[in-house]
């Protein structure tokens, strides 16, 4: 057994539905806000925007309420910061050196957990924006008259520019970096288990592997997916021990 589960089914469903609906919302919203189409097209796109907003909202709520343990683990991973997490910023995870030949900080990247410091920061921002966009979106649609103009304007601009900024970060940061990290990308998007190789996990997420993953010798010749595999050991998570 040389693979370890990095993204659970619920995480994959949440992430992928969120990503698709996000871009549907972003594209329709940008066309409408910047007046890039005729009135009838904008009207149609706005209907799509609203229904995509419904999917976006219930996908997030479903993740929280149907898989609260996964949401808890996600938040725990994002909110736990140690000295190695902060040390990541010294060389920004080595990415400037790797992609742009810009030498910043030490060559060695400080060992990271399941998410590196950049991911933690970005994903916390993403989650904040998901909540902010859901709240502002529904208020703008259903409860505009309960807010007053000042709050309405604040919600409107937070909704518009918050989503645009987040989309830019996702498009030019998150997506290129995830493409560069192919195993993580496949784990997240393939139809099937969200696993990465042990080698990958040890290299990219050493502290996660060290702290959360333990290797248990095989006892009944079945791995965690029910397949026959009587050789070696199987990775399980520390909290499943």
């Amino acid at each position, binding site marked *: 057994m040389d693979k370890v589960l990095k993204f659970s089914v619920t995480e994959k469903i949440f992430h992928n539905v969120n990503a698709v609906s996000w871009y549907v919302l972003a594209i329709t919203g940008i066309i409408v806000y910047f007046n890039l189409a005729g009135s009838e097209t904008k009207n149609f796109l*706005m209907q799509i925007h609203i229904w995509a907003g419904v999917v976006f909202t219930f996908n997030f709520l479903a993740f929280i309420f149907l898989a609260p343990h996964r949401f808890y683990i996600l938040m725990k991973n994002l909110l736990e910061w140690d000295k190695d997490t902060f040390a990541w910023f010294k060389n920004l995870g080595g990415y400037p050196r790797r992609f742009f030949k810009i030498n910043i900080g030490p060559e060695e990247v400080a060992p990271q957990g399941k998410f590196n410091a950049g991911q933690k920061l970005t994903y916390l921002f993403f989650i904040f924006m998901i909540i902010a966009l859901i709240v502002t979106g529904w208020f703008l649609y259903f409860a505009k008259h309960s807010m007053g103009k000042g709050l*309405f*304007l604040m919600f409107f601009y937070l909704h518009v520019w918050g989503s645009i900024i987040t989309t830019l970060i996702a498009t030019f940061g998150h997506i290129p970096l995830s493409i560069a990290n192919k195993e993580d990308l496949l784990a997240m998007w393939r139809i099937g288990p969200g696993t990465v190789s042990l080698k990958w996990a040890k290299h990219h997420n050493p502290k996660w592997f060290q702290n959360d993953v333990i290797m248990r010798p095989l006892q009944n010749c079945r791995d965690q997916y029910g397949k026959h595999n009587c050789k070696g050991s199987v990775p399980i998570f520390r909290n499943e021990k």
Partner: protein
Amino acid sequence: MGVQKIATFSPSEKTFTGGGTFLPGEVKGIIRINPNKCVGCDTCRHHCPAGAIKGSLGVTHHIEEDLCLSCGQCLVNCPFGAIEQMSFLDEVLSRLKDPDYTVVAIIAPAVRVALAEEFGAPPGTLTVHRMHAAFKKAGFRIYENNLAADQTIMEEGYEFIAKVKYWLLGDKTPELEKFAEHPLPHFTSCCPAWIRYAELYWPDILPHISGAKSPQQMAGATVKTWVALRLWNIDPRKIYTVGIMPCTAKIYEASRPEFKSAFYWLKEKGHLPEDTPPFPDVDAVLTTRDAAELFRCLNINPLNVSPEKETDITEVYTGGATIFGNSGGVTEAALRTAYCVLSGQEPSSWNIEAVRGHTTGVRTAKLAIPLKPLGGKKANFHICVVNGVKNHLEPILEDVVIGKSPFHFIEVMNCPGGCINGGGQPVNPMGTSWIDPLLPLPLKA
């Protein structure tokens, strides 16, 4: 808190051409949506009492002129300041500079409460005497709209009394015969947006509406007749009357072709040369915002002007006139008169608080009046105050049309809260009538 800046535009030739639901000469297109600023948030559409705003969420909205009441509720409630108002400020400024003209300000009660906001002070800061002094400093003479409101209430109150005599007390004397065509319930007529709403959408209601002109129109006609000839000894043709109003629909009202009463009276009485072209009773209307802009153009801050010490005869009025600016105020003033005339005595209190209606969409009340013709026997009068046409008025009108209305007197104010929250008032950036669509809620103003 500052006020929201509202863009204005000047009238064009097309403004007066009529067509559609407008007669020639009537000002149309007073309110317009700037397509470059509208983001299609759809807020305005929910405030329009006439369904005149077209457009869906995300799509640039526009106003169907023919359906529009010019009430300006969309304007004061637009969070983006995308809705603009036609202004006659340039015309008024040029008249003020013309020494041949006497420019008369007819200042509505709601203006004095709100004008201070445009100069950074809390509502109500400006005293009446200080405001009068500021207008005089700008070159105006003053005819208090409140004085005309007192005239209005005499007209409207006595009209209601006559209807009560005809329809409830069975007095069919010849002088009351004309009321056979004007049944109860009696509707107020001061709000021009409500009148246009009734004309466009509920013509069956028109016989119920008071025949009394609004205070602005009574003031205009009075200034160009009684005041011009008896008080100031001025050629009425050289008087330029300006309504200073909290209301954008007043701009439309002043332009209605029937409001040339002074011209026709003066001509009939031989005060005008034969070749005098018709002139309106009210020549122009400035909103409260326009008036503030006028002061700014003339470098006058009304808050810093020394108050007047003397009051001219055209500046006196009663408290009954002042409360016109608030929802329920017209009703309260009319009922005070009706009570006195019908009962032959003063009410126990002049404050008829039950009809003050700014906290709910529809306020109903019952007032027992001892009727002198019936030997003091008390009769219950059912009163209704509609505080904002949008959302509240239709069920009331439906009952009237089918003859099932329980009311004797119905006040209609197009804007939630009355004139005080009119489309011409300084715009609160936090929103004033935003909560109205959520009514009824136990909200306290």
